[in-house]
Structure formats: C-alpha cells, structure tokens
C-alpha cells in the first residue's frame, strides 16, 4: 500500500511545496553564484552541475513513478530505457555526426519503440512474473550494449560527444536541461490527471473491477509502460548531452536502484515527490559517496527499507506521518471523521435515482420481450468438478430473471462465464444476437453487460465520487484520453447518483473506509452507472439488513422498469427473489433443474425438496 489518501488540507500544502520547488529550481544558478561569491574557495559551477544531474534524475524517477505509483507496476528494466536514450544520442553523433540536439529529439521515438516491443513481451505476465520478465529484458538489452562491440563500442561505450557552444557553459546547460525536464513533467502531469490516468488508478486499485467497467487492463499497462520508457529515454538523452558519454553499465539492472530509491524517498503517491527525492538523493550522494563509497549502498538500502516498512508515503507524506506519530504519542484519538454507518440505503431516494441521466440503458436492437441473452449448452469444469453442465438459459429483454439454487449449484460460475471472467469449456453465449462466448471481460462490459459482484468490488482508495466518475469515464470510452482533468468530468452526474442512493455525505471519503452496507450501495451504483442493457447482480443484498434489502431491491426494480434495464440476479433471500423476479430459474449441481414464474417455482415439489424445505426432517 504505497499510496495514501490525502485530504484537501494536505493538497494545499502540497501545492505550496510544489510552487516552492519550481521557484527553487529556477533560481539555482543565481543562488549558486551568490554562494560562490560568499565562499571564494568553492566553485559555483559544482552546485549547478549537481542541480543539473538532479533534474535529469528527477525526470527519470518521475517517469518510473508513472508505473510504480500510478499503475502499481515494478519494473527492473527502466535503466535500460534510460541507457537507450543516451546511446541514441551518442551513437547517432558518433556514426552519423548528427548534432546532439537533433539526436535528443529522436530519443522519445527510440524509447517508445523499444518500450513498446519489450512491453508487449513483459506484459504477457502479470505482477511478480512481469517484474521478473522486465529483469530478463533488461539483462538482454545490457548484454547487447555490452557485447555488440561493432555497433555500441562494447565495454568502452561512446565518448567525446560534443555539444553546441551555446550549451557549453554550466548555467545555460542547466536551463536547457531544466526546460526539457519541465516540459516533460508538464506532459506527464497532464496525463496522470487525465481520464487515462484515472483508468490507471482504477487498475492499480482493483484489476478485476477495472475490467468489469470496461477497461482493457493489458492495453493500459502497455501504454503506461511505453510512456514511461519514452520519458526515461529522454532523460537518458539529456544525460548523454550533459555528461557527453554513454556506457553499458547504465543499462545494468542494478542501476534501477536509482529511480526506485528516488521515487520511494520522495513519495510515490505524489507527482512531484520523486523530483524532491532526486534533489535529496543527489545531495546525499555527493556528500557521502566521496568519502564513504561503500557505505552509500548501505544507506540507500536502509532508506528503501525504512520507506517500505515504516513510512510508505516517502518524503511527501512526512508531514502526515509526523502528525500521526504525534497523535500516537499523545494518545489522542484521530480527529473526528464522518463515520459511515453502512446504512446509506435508508436515505436513498428512489424517485431521484430513476431521474438520474447517467442511469440509462444503451440502445440495442432488441425489443422488449425478445431474447436478449441466450445461453446454449454451456459447460465449465474445474479439475474433476463440473461446476456448470450443459446449461441452456434465455433472458428476455426487460425481464427480471432470478437464478436460485443451493450454494455450489453453479450460479457464480455461470455469472463468471457470462461476464467473461471465466472461459467456458463448451457452449455459446449470445448477447443481443452477438456471440460473446469467451470474450474478455472489458469487451463484454462494453457490449452492455454490467455486473455487481458477490464480494464487494470497489476501488478502495479512491473517493466515492471518483469510484462513480471513473466508472462513467471508462464505460463511455473517455479513458483513452490523455488530457483533461478526470476529476472534473462527470462530476455532476456522479454526484447526482451518489446523492440519490444516499451516499452524498461520503462523496469525498475513500470508498474503502465506508461501512459494509454502504460499500454494497457503491457497488450497486457503479453497476447502474455503466448504462448497461443487462445487469448481473450476484447476491446484491448480501450483508444488508432486511429494510435495506427491500429498499435496494425496490430501487433495482424501479430502475429496471423505468430505464428498460434487464436484470439477471442470484440471491439466497427467497423473499427478495419472489418479490422481485418475474422469471425464476433453479440450478442444482451445475444443471438447470427447472424454470418458471415465481408461483410455479414455489409450488414445484422437486424444488421444494432440494431447496426450499430442504431441512425439514433433520435430527
């Protein structure tokens, strides 16, 4: 849990720190000059030199944090893309005498191409295996740089890169580097705040949920990986301009320690955190590594350990951390917060939910009463267990269709097969006439099948408002946009829906802090906000009180009726089933036992035996 939720007061402090940092960065050369005049035995150039390398490091680390902090990916190949940027500038200069500034313009292309190609491979795997794959890729690239002497110069690397005269002095070079870095940071900042960035946050928080709101997880991960390598290559190009060399060790995987340490030190949860980390790191390195080269590794390691184990927010969360610490020592209670009681449903305004614009089923060419979802001969086994066997089921448009059956009857598996979370062994699933069998979850979500899960599936560290906003963004296809402020989009619609379901007071709280019933309400709201034609509800009222259950089902019923939604739900509570459904299918041991109106099912002796009155004659 690297990122922490920050309240609005913290946000103001952070903007202050950011402004101070930018001013400081702009004023480095004059400050250094002043310092040099006051201490005649010290050259001011050295301070400017340090600030320049800190700038480059900041760009490198922030690009790393695009993956680490925003998408939750640990890569061990980031140093390789940094190195590729440097080699691009160096080799083009050495072989084709291309001026370094033109070379620098080509670094993002080189970084993006290599990042995309290697990312395609690395992202075949997820999480841990992804990290290990990046390690392999990193070593592969290093081996090429180190051993392909004919092209790269091997062990020696590229030296003697000359730069334009205008940049040959420290101060102009500093401003040039700072300008390029600043430009890159602005672009990255815009991206992180955009709907695209919102999709990344959703993926980091809950991959499964992200898929079910229509986000193609792999695609976004590949995109952010490519973006990160693009900016890393620019940073590497700047390094080659600044140091006038490129060498193979730059690509070695242990070099990743630098962006990792810097990002952690500054805080992965904030955009400029790593930049501040870069300055601290550079100062530390220069005061320590001169006399204590070996101890420096130990200090780096200790910093990473402390950050990972004790202060997960890094430098950027230090103020908050200190406050918490002080509170703990004084044994003070945390400042009063709005307590979520988990009873939002009591305050839900049903008439209002129905009015909400966002809740609108997408148009499909299926008339009311016609088959909307057709399942043919569907089967799925897990090892020896036949969870779903030869199931045929038709859900008609506009119907409220319940699936009941004892636990283990195969209801959840069936839902997972429909929503694409599982692939069937055989059989077909048709939706609105289209074959969606075995399609990935995000495409099925896009096709118009929304889902509320049995276990609560929300984005815990995003606010309630963001949960809804991001769901709307994703479902309407805005998340491919790398610009615009995601938090300002669909604000009114999301807020309207939140208030209508009774969660208005909690809009700015992280969803994970709400009570169980309220999280269920968010879950329900998300599935309604997706504008789906068919909504799958897996025990929608589990964990709600009887009153809330009634209200939630009344809500579902009204929305379905007014907005032309079709419902397919499974539920244990028979009162809910018989009160809501118009069609009931009974499943038992993976098969469809029977189907009919609630009345028919209630009277069916077989159903009574296995399910409704199953325990009459015990003991």
């Amino acid at each position, binding site marked *: 849990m690297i990122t922490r939720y920050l309240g609005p007061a913290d946000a103001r402090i952070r903007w202050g720190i950011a402004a101070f940092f930018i001013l400081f960065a702009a004023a480095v050369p004059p400050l250094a000059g002043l310092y040099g005049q006051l201490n005649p035995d010290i050259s001011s150039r050295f301070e400017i030199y340090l600030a320049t390398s800190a700038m480059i490091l900041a760009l490198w680390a922030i690009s790393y944090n695009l993956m680490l902090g925003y998408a939750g990916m640990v890569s061990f190949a980031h140093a390789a893309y940094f190195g590729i940027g440097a080699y691009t500038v160096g080799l083009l200069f050495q072989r084709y005498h291309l001026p370094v500034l033109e070379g620098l313009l080509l670094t993002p292309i080189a970084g993006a191409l290599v990042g995309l190609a290697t990312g395609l491979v690395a992202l075949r795997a997820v999480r841990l295996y992804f990290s290990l794959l990046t390690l392999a890729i990193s070593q592969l690239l290093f081996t090429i740089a180190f051993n392909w002497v004919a092209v790269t110069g091997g062990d020696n690397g590229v030296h003697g890169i000359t730069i334009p005269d205008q940049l040959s002095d420290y101060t102009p070079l500093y401003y040039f580097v700072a300008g390029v870095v600043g430009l890159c940071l602005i672009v990255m900042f815009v991206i992180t705040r955009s709907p695209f960035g919102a999709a990344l946050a959703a993926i980091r928080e809950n991959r499964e949920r992200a898929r079910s709101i229509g986000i193609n997880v792999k695609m976004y991960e590949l995109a952010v990986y490519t973006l990160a390598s693009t900016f890393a290559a620019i940073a590497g190009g700047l390094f080659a301009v600044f140091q006038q060399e490129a060498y193979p060790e730059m690509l070695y995987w242990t070099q990743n320690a630098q962006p990792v340490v810097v990002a952690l030190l500054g805080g992965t949860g904030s955009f400029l955190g790593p930049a501040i980390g870069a300055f601290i790191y550079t100062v530390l390195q220069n005061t320590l590594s001169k006399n204590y080269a070996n101890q420096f590794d130990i200090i780096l390691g200790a910093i990473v350990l402390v950050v990972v184990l004790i202060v997960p927010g890094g430098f950027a969360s230090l103020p908050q951390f200190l406050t918490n610490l002080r509170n703990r020592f004084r044994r003070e209670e945390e400042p009063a917060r709005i307590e979520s009681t988990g009873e939002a449903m009591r305050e839900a305004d049903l008439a209002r939910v129905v009015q909400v614009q966002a809740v609108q089923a997408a148009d499909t060419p299926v008339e009311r009463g016609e088959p909307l979802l057709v399942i043919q001969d569907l089967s799925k086994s897990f090892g020896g267990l036949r969870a779903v066997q030869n199931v045929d089921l038709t859900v008609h448009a506009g119907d409220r269709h319940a699936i009941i059956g*004892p*636990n*283990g009857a195969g209801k959840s598996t069936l839902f997972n097969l429909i929503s694409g979370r599982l692939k069937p062994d055989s059989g077909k699933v048709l939706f609105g006439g289209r074959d969606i069998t075995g399609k990935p979850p995000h495409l099925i979500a896009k096709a118009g099948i929304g889902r509320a899960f049995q276990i609560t599936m929300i984005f815990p560290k995003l606010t309630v408002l963001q949960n809804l906003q991001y769901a709307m963004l994703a479902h309407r296809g805005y998340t491919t946009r790398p610009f615009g402020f995601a938090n300002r989009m669909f604000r009114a619609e999301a807020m309207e829906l939140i208030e209508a379901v009774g969660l208005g007071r909690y809009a700015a709280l992280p969803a994970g*802090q709400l009570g169980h019933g309220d999280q269920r309400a968010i879950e329900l709201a998300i599935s309604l906000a997706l504008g789906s034609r068919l909504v799958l509800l897996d025990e929608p009222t589990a*964990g709600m009180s*009887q009153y809330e259950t009634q209200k939630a089902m009344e809500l579902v019923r009204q929305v379905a009726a007014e907005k032309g939604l079709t419902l397919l739900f499974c539920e244990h509570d028979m009162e809910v089933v018989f009160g809501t459904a118009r069609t009931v299918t009974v499943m038992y041991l993976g098969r469809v036992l029977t189907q009919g109106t609630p009345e028919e099912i209630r009277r069916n002796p077989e159903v009574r035996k296995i399910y409704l009155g*199953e*325990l009459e004659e*015990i*003991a």
Partner: protein
Amino acid sequence: MLKVAGLNVRYGKSHVVFDLDLTVESGQMLALLGRNGAGKTTSLMGILGLLPGAQGRVAIDGADVSRWPAHRRAQSGLAYVPSGARCFPNLTVAENLEIAARRRAGSNGSSSTSSRGTSWTKERVYELFPKLGELQANMAGGLSGGERQMLAVGRALMSNPKVILMDEPTEGLAPVIVQSIGRLVLELKQTGVGILLAEQNHQMALKVADRAAFMEKGRIVDEMPAARAINSEVLHRILGV
C-alpha cells in the same frame, strides 16, 4: 470451556466486531446466527487468534489465552472447521489429518472432557468416515464438497479439542450430507466437546444447538435457548424468515 469477553476486531480503520461476549460450555453448542457480513467469520477468526486487529479476553478452560498466537490456542484445545471446508489441497487426506494430530491438551482430565476417554487418531476418524479411509492416499484437492467437509471435521477432531469452531459447515452441501453433519455434531456434543457454530442456515443450526446468539453489524444483539429462538421475533427480523 470457551469464554470470550469484550472482543473487538478492527481491520485497518474499520471496526468490524464490537464487544463480543459469549460462552460455550462443554458438551454444549452455541449457534451464532446472522447474515453475510454480520461479522460471524471475523468473530471466529478473532477468537482463534488469526487476526492481529483483535482485542479482548479469550479463555479456554479457565486459562487466559488472549495474548497467545493462533498455534498456541490451537494446541490448548481450540479447533477450527473453516467455511468452504478449506483443507490443504496439495496434501493427501492422511497428511491433512496428521498435520493437526495432537495429544489431548491439558492432561488434567476433568471428568467432563474425558467421559469418552480415548483420544482421536487417524484410525478413529476413518471409522467415523469410512470414505476418508478409502481416500487416504488421495490429494485432498480432488475430493468432493461433502468429502472435504468430512476431512475438515476429521482434522479438527485429530487435535482432540475442547472446543470446535465451525464456520458454515453446511454451505453448499446436498441436504443428505447436511443431515449427516447434523447427526455428527450431536454425537460430538456427547463426547463433551463444546461447539461454536456460525451459520446462516438457521434450520439446521437451531435443531442441534443448545443456545443461539444473533449477530447484526458486528454485535450480538440477542441470545436465548435454541428452542425459544426458532419462533423468536429476532430470528424473523435478522434472517428474514
């Protein structure tokens, strides 16, 4: 036998179980009834010592175990039959049983616990569940739901426990098996074992339990003899029957 006083469980910032008090006598069974998410499983896990965020007093046979880690509580007589009949799928049936094997804890042998003196062994478990004996060399992961449930109960018995905590043992099982579990539970009570049963299936639970406690939103809201609970208003309100 098992006495819990003022148990509170927090996950991070959210408070899940509030001031839980309950007592399970030897040879008796307490049914803990409530909906999904009411805090039943969390309470059991808190009593077992599996949750770092649990605070409160837990005593087994008079000994305060509140500060003990889970394995010591297990060694001193607490056994667990987790929900979904969890077992070690990559171990054989026999290994699943051996892993919990433990001689009778607290050899003071109070008359109530040693009424049926002999302690549980693999052989006795196979006598009780002949099916498990047939399958003893098979991997537990390949068992059916009912067989796994037998294994989970058998594993709990192997530690010769004083109290067994069962979490929805009937979930997902065919009615025939549910009945046999009901009978088994009655037999176990005869041997002097105390049982704490968390259930949503109140029909089975109330038929075999001595007392019933109702849980809602992390609190026990009512407790009464099982016979009275069957027609109680609180059962109607909480479980919606």
